Structure formats: C-alpha cells, structure tokens
C-alpha cells in the first residue's frame, strides 16, 4: 500500500507514480534504477563483445586484412572502454542499487533522487561516448599520417582510439587531432561523475540506513564489498577527474601539461591515470567476490567460513590497492627504488586475496554441495580467478614483468581475472537473484549449457594468450606476420571467442524465456541465509512490509534452522510458519508506508551533461558555446529546482 502522493505545483507538475514509460524516466525507486542499470550495462556488454569478435576476426590468422590499422586501434580501445566503464562498473551498480537496501533491511538508499541522477548521467555519458562513431573525427598528427598511412579513418575507425588508458602525449592535441579523443576524455569524465555521486550515496546508505540490529559486522558480505567499492570510487575518481580535466584543457584550452615538446610531462599522465586505474580494477572485482561470498554458503548449506576475515580481507585489498599503481609502469622509466617498492607492495595484495580463496574453500569443505547454476559460476570464479591471480603475481616480479609487458601474457592475466573472475561472478549473481527480480526461476538446463559453453570458450580464448605472449606476440598491434607461427593458437583463440558469444546467446534466451514463463519461485527458493529472502518474490515496491529487526549474522537462516550438537543444521518445527508469516507481512504491510516521490529533475540534470559535453567539444563553432551555456544553465536550474522540491509530497518535515 504505497502512498503515491498527489502532485503539487512547482513550475511543472510533479509526476505521479504510474506504470507508463514516464514512470521509468522519473522513478527514484532503487529497484527500478537497478533494473535500468542492468539492462543498459548488458546492452553495452553485447556491443563490447561484438567489438571483441571483430578484433578476433582480424587476428585469427597472420597478416589479417579485416581491419585497417586505424580501425583496429579504435576497436580495441572501444572494447576495453566499453567493458570496463559501460559494462562491469554499471552492472556492479545494478547489483548495488537493487540489492544493497534489501541486504541491510532498508526501504531505499539514502538519497533516492541522487541515485536516479547517477543512472541518468551514466546513460547519457555512454550515449555521448558512443556518439563518437557518428560525429567523431580522427585526424593525423601534425605533419604526419594515421597508422597504416591513412589520412582519415573510416567510420569504424572514427571513434576513441588511444587505448582505454589514453596515454599522453599520443592521445593529446598534437598527435591526435580531430575530436574522437575529446569524446573519450569528456565522456569518461561524465561517467566518473556518475560513479562518484553513487559512491557518496551508498556510503551514506550503509552507515545510516541499516535496519535495527544490523550491526556492520552482521551485514552480508556483498553489502560490505559494496561499501569497500564505494570508498575506492570515492578516493580514486577525483584523481582521474583531475587527469581528464588536464587532458581536456590541453586539447581545448592550450594548456601544456602533457605536451612534451613544451615542457609537459608524459609520465605524469601515467601516474595520475594508474592512481585511479589500479583501485579501479579492485572496483571491478570486489562486487563479484561479494556475490560469490553470498552464493557459496547457500549452496554448501554452511555458513561462510571466517566471515570477519573475508570482510577484512576485502577492505585490505581495497586499501592496499592504492599503494601499487606504478606496477603498471615498471617499463616506463621509473627509478629502481620505485620499482622494488611497488613490486613488493604488489606481492602483498596476494595475501588478503589468498585469505578469501581459502575461506571460500573452507566454506565448501564438508558442506552439502548443490550444483545449481549460480553455484557452478561461483566455482568457476574461484578456479579461474586463481589462475588470473597467479599470473598477476608473476607480474610483480619486475624483471619478469619487463618481458611480459605489452604482450598477450598481460592480456591473458586481466581477462582471467575480469572475465573468469568478475564476469563469472556477475552471472552467478544474475542467476541467484533472478527470483527476487521476477518471482520466477531461470532454467537450470539452459543455465548449465551457458556455464559449460562459457567455461570452455573462455579458457580456449584466454588460455593460449599466456604462451602467445611469452613467445612474443605484442599487444595493440593490428596484425602479425606469418613467420612468427602465431597463427594456429590465434585461430583457437578466435574460435573460443565465438563459443563465448554462443554462450551469451544461450543466456539471453534463458533470461527472456524465464522472465515470461519460468517456474514461479515462491518466497525463498534457494533456502538461503540472508535477509533479502525474507520478503516475497518479486520484491514488493516497499521492500519490507515491516522494518526488520536483526539478531545476528545470517539472521534469516537462524529463523529457520537450529544447529545440532555437531553443528549441522536442523530445520525448526515452525520454519514453514515463519516463512508464511514473513510472506504475509511482506505482501500486506500492516501500516501505511511512505515512499519517496518520483521526480523528473534527475533526468533533466543528466540530459544537461549531453549539452555540456557537445558544447565543450564544439565550442569554437558558432553553435557550440551557446549549447554549452544552455547545458550549464539547464544543469543549474534543475539542481535548484531539485533543492526546492520536497523529498516527499504533502508531508511535514520528519527531521526534528
């Protein structure tokens, strides 16, 4: 019985709740926002995947001629940028948005409108980035040519092309004329803002919105990982923001930060980028680790082994992650002292990571394992992440890294941790929490087909890259000659990539079918441990009918099960009655519930960034500066309007 609230008049009428498309545009409900993040992120996943498949066509055999050199640069850049910023981060946001309030027993996040703002900034940032295909121009360096001798790139090559890391001065105004790298630097800036706003929101939520009895060390591990990720974002995004401003100013205003011909410093960019970039990779992996920490205990019928250790290890990984950035720069000419220090620091991160791995193994040890699809993906995560982590540790040995840098060995490493790790974890989460979203179960049969195809495909794709790299196959190079004998394994890699694509198709079929006709899940289909399963599926709009009171870790489990003398779970006599009772109060809340009212300001504020972005790039053209000014005015007015708009309509202030 949600209170929808009648509109009051500001300049325009405030939107009412409805189920039309305007509902989605103005929603401030964390679940809807999470769903929008999820579908958008998946869409970009497919785009990034297509970019990879095109790359693999080019590299399937020696002297490939599918892509020109300039097009190749664009494809690998967009593949990386899309996967990192437009898929893994937003799908993490999808999970945080949907699940975090449920996991801590809250009705929504601390700032629902700001939450919507984060989404709209993200989606318009992604559109802005991809519009570079349509509007962006590449230009040769002054007095030079584009790679391969071209003077202008084709459509496929006319997009961001400096690598996802945009090293300077290559990606600066002198060597990359044209506008594509402005789309890159400004687009990333916009996306960064989205995540920064979200991180403030999530930290405030975790600190202040927990249910009664939900002490910090009783929160589910995924809630903890969300918090650590939010802190990583909070402290690392400002650094890349400064770096991106510097690039934008170099390109637009003539500053000289990175122009080595005039005293600028190329290494400065690398430091600033990787100061952000390294915490970034922990931002990418920690959510998946959190998901796995939720799934493994449920399907081992055992509590997570060493919960405090897993939590603190996650925090330690985050903290140490700020101290190792220059391990991306071992071959950039930093001093031997710096190399030794960063090499050593990098090795230490293996310790908390290892703690997590052993605790996951300990969780499963002597458990009653149920090999459901989410469990398979979690097991896959553990195995594949270990492989990726081991190759990562080999990079920490500096002389070895000099051999490995810029080869496919590195590509193998980060795809094992990001694909085998983050993406497998994400799929585990999607299968595990699908019932919360839809009230239905995904098909186990199709799920297993998806898993095995993906597992095989993934290893075929990234396994051979280890030895291809050690044999000397170089990164970011659009073709290799016959004489190197890389052809056979590259063909295997390409076949593997297409198998992955097939597995994704299976997943998509499963999702669509199950959403419509999947077996209804009922309330607690997995017989799970944590609080999000104590409410009906699909999740009611108000989340909890009655504000929960938590008595300990895995509170929901302990309402259903006691432990016998040997620590084995014994179902309580009244477990079914308890479940039924929670279901009833979830569906029919006893007291009226007030939810934050929808608002169109976040949408408008997000839209204004498009105007600002295009305005900055084209400010020297007649219409550019007016567009920029319009964007700024639109942003300011929407923010001011927002601050005049009450959080809920027609209620007195609730804070004393």
């Amino acid at each position, binding site marked *: 019985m949600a209170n929808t609230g009648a509109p009051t008049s500001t300049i325009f009428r405030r939107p009412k709740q409805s189920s039309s498309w305007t509902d989605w545009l103005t929603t401030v409900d964390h679940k809807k926002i999470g769903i929008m993040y999820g579908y958008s992120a998946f869409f970009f996943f497919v785009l990034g995947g297509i970019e990879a498949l095109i790359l693999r066509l080019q590299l399937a055999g020696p002297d490939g001629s599918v892509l020109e050199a300039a097009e190749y640069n664009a494809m690998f850049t967009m593949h990386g940028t899309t996967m990192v910023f437009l898929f893994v981060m937003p799908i993490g946001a999808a999970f945080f948005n949907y699940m975090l309030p449920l996991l801590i027993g809250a009705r929504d996040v601390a700032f629902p409108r700001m939450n919507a703002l984060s989404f709209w900034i993200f989606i318009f940032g992604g559109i802005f980035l991809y519009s570079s295909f349509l509007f962006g121009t590449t230009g040769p360096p002054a007095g030079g040519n584009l790679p391969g001798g071209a003077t202008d790139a084709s459509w496929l090559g006319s997009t961001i092309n400096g690598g996802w890391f945009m090293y300077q001065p290559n990606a600066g105004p002198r060597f990359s004329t044209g506008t594509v790298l402005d789309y890159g630097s400004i687009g990333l800036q916009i996306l960064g803002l989205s995540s920064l706003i979200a991180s403030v929101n999530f930290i405030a939520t975790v600190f202040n919105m927990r249910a009664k009895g939900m002490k910090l060390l009783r929160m589910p591990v995924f809630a903890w990982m969300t918090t650590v990720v939010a802190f990583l974002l909070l*402290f690392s995004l400002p650094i890349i923001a400064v770096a991106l401003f510097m690039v934008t100013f170099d390109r637009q205003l003539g500053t000289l930060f990175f122009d080595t011909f005039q005293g600028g410093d190329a290494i*400065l960019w690398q*430091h600033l980028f990787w*100061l952000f970039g390294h915490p970034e990779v922990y931002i990418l992996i920690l959510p998946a680790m959190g998901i796995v920490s939720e799934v493994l205990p449920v399907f081992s019928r055992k509590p997570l082994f060493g919960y405090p250790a897993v939590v603190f290890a996650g925090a330690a990984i985050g903290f140490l992650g*700020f101290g190792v950035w220059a391990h991306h720069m071992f071959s950039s000419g*930093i*001093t031997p002292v*710096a190399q030794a220090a960063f090499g050593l620091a990098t090795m230490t991160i293996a310790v908390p990571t290892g703690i997590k791995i052993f605790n996951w193994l300990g969780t499963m040890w002597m458990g009653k394992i149920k090999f459901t699809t989410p469990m398979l993906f979690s097991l896959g995560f553990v195995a594949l992440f270990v492989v990726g982590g081991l190759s990562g540790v080999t990079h920490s040995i500096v002389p070895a890294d000099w051999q490995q840098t810029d080869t496919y060995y590195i590509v193998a490493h980060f795809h094992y941790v990001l694909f085998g790790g983050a993406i497998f974890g994400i799929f585990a989460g999607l299968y595990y929490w699908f019932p919360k979203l839809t009230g239905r179960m995904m098909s186990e049969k199709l799920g297993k087909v998806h898993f095995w195809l993906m597992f095989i495909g993934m290893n075929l794709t990234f396994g051979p890259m280890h030895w291809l790299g050690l044999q000397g196959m170089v990164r970011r190079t659009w073709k290799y000659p016959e004489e190197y004998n890389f052809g056979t394994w590259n063909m295997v890699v390409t076949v593997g990539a297409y198998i992955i694509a097939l597995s994704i198709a299976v997943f998509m079929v499963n999702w669509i079918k199950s959403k419509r006709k999947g077996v209804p899940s009922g309330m607690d289909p997995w017989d799970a441990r944590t609080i999000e399963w104590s409410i009906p599926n699909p999740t009611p709009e108000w989340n909890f009918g009655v504000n929960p009171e938590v008595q300990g870790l895995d509170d929901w489990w302990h309402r259903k099960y006691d432990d016998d003398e040997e620590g084995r779970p014994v179902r309580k006599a009244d477990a079914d009655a308890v479940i039924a009772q929670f279901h009833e109060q979830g569906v029919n809340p006893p007291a009226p519930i007030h939810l934050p009212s929808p608002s169109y300001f976040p949408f408008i504020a997000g839209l204004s960034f498009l105007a600002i972005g295009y305005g900055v790039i084209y400010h020297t053209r007649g219409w550019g500066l007016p567009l920029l000014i319009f964007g700024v005015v639109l942003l300011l007015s929407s923010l001011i309007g927002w601050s005049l708009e009450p959080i809920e309509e027609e209620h007195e202030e609730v*804070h*004393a």
Partner: protein
Amino acid sequence: MAQAQTKAHPEPKQYVQIALLLAVLTGVEVALYYIEQGGVSSSIVYPTLIILAALKFVIVVAFYMHVRYEKSLIARFFTVGFFGALMLYTVVLGTFGVLASLGGQ
C-alpha cells in the same frame, strides 16, 4: 534539532574571537613572506609558514566545521580523507623527485 551534539557549540562571541585569531595568523604569514624577502633563511621561514597554515586549517576544521563537537565518525572521515591524500601525494611527488628538490630550496 534531534541530532546528538556531544559538547555545546560555541557562541557568536567565540566565533568572532576565532576569526580574529585567524586574521592575526594570516598577518603573521604575510609578514614572514616579507621577512624572507628581506634575507632571512627560507629554511626557517618555510616550515614556519607551513605550521601557521596548518594551524589555521585545524582551527577552521575543529571550530567552524564543528568537528570538535561532532561524533567521532565525522572526524574519521576528515582524517582518512585528508591524511590519506597527504600520504598518497607525498609518495607520488617522491617518485618524481620533487620532494628532494623542494627540500633543497
């Protein structure tokens, strides 16, 4: 206001006194600048300037931003943010050899 305030906030009179103190400290800083111009060694002046700036910084944070009077979580956010940034950028500048050259000035 329902929020718990651990100690009573200062009165306007005290805020004005603090402002005067800040003004005096600023005056001393500017004076030190000219003293250094006049020939006093920078290795005395510069550390003093930094201490004075730090003092002003802490006074504003503690009294105007009420950190002294708030729950300790607030102080923790400030400390982590500020000292974290300080340490991180010291390491960065160190890697560039900037700290060595600054010390030599």
